[in-house]
């Protein structure tokens, strides 16, 4: 029994780790995917912002200039300021990136409402470019391979 239980735990850890890794990789790919989406860059053309985006435990520090993500590095970065953060549990990102996502997991603010994501800081850049952030953070949707259990 102990052995069987341990085996299950290992599998769960393994699944969780693989989800975390896949989410981190998907995030790292977002700037390149954005570069392939000029209309989305154009919609954020007035946006210059430092923000934290990504998985709750290990987000990225994103530097956005004229709608382009010019730097995306693992946070924290020594003494670097940010204006707002949007962070969600890795499993929530995995759900958000399903095509199609399940009901209740399909929008950034659906995730905050259900307590799977947190939105903090000075929200002005986020709210004044809301559709931009929704679309940028959905870019991995058609490429994300992990299916949540």
């Amino acid at each position, binding site marked *: 029994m102990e052995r069987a239980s341990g085996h299950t735990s290992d599998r769960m850890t393994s699944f969780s780790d693989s989800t975390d890794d896949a989410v981190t990789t998907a995030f790292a790919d977002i700037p390149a995917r954005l570069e392939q989406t000029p209309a989305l860059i154009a919609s954020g053309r007035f946006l210059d912002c430092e923000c934290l985006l990504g998985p709750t435990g290990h987000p990225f520090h994103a530097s956005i200039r004229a709608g382009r993500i010019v730097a995306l590095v693992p946070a924290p970065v020594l003494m670097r300021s940010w204006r707002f953060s949007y962070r969600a549990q890795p499993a929530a990102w995995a759900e958000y990136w399903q*095509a*199609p*996502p399940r*009901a*209740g997991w*399909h*929008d*950034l*603010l*659906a995730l*905050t*409402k*259900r307590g799977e994501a947190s939105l903090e800081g000075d*929200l*002005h850049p986020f*709210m*004044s470019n*809301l*559709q931009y952030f*929704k679309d940028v953070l959905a870019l991995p949707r058609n490429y994300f391979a992990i299916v949540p259990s």
Partner: protein
Amino acid sequence: MSGHVEPILGRYVHVEIGGETHRIYFEENGAGIPLVCLHTAGSDGRQWRHLLTDAEFAENFRIIAFDLPWHGKSNPPAGWSGEEYQLTTARYTETIRAFCKALTLDRPVVMGCSIGGRIVLNLAIDHAAEFRALIGLEAADFQAPWYDTTWLNRPDVHGGEVCAALVSGLIAPQSPQAARTETLWAYKQGGPGVFKGDLYFYRVDGDLRGRVETIDTKVCPLFLLTGEYDFSCTPEDTRRTAAAIGGASVTIMEQLGHFPMSENPEQFRRYISPVLGEILKQSMQTKQGVNV
């Protein structure tokens, strides 16, 4: 004329609301049982254009959609001097009843979505005998807020863009892109502060918890339909509301969100057709004296 002309007719009716004349724009098509359709907060009657042009429904229903004052082609009243617009339960109820009276509608069916769904519940509570049936889409007695409405009307954020971006997540991902874009376009066109003012009714003034228990569906049948992707008025919100009302019909609509009639008209038709069929059947039985 060689172009395709839709059968929708649009006109204005002058309606007395709060002691002041309002010029209300409405569109209609069909003949038979009056079916008055109420748009969502911050939008207008164009949301109903697919229902309005449904030839099968139009055979038995006079389908009518009007723009609330401040919305669509219904301007603010002439006496408005720019003070903050705020929709209240009393004002919304008065507007619907006054509109129906101005068109001398005989016990109409009223179908409303979102704030329209909420006010339908209030009509069921206080004025059920005036209506043949009531249909609430995305309707509940209350739902938990999920954003701060002050973002909707401030000079440093584009009102149209933020209103549309907020509600975009309420549309089901399966909805066709063209219908999604059209649904959001109305939000981008809304007047400053109008969506926020509508939500005063939704968030502050129109909490119907503890009141829906008094609804008597024997006086007026009540149908509640909610899209599975609506995370503003969730299926759980609608089920909880219906559980307090004896005889209310509840349907959870798959692959639909907060704007069923405009975000995916074809999918919505699958759900609303049986409801209208049931109302038609009940109405014919009543007319023949079977169910009086």
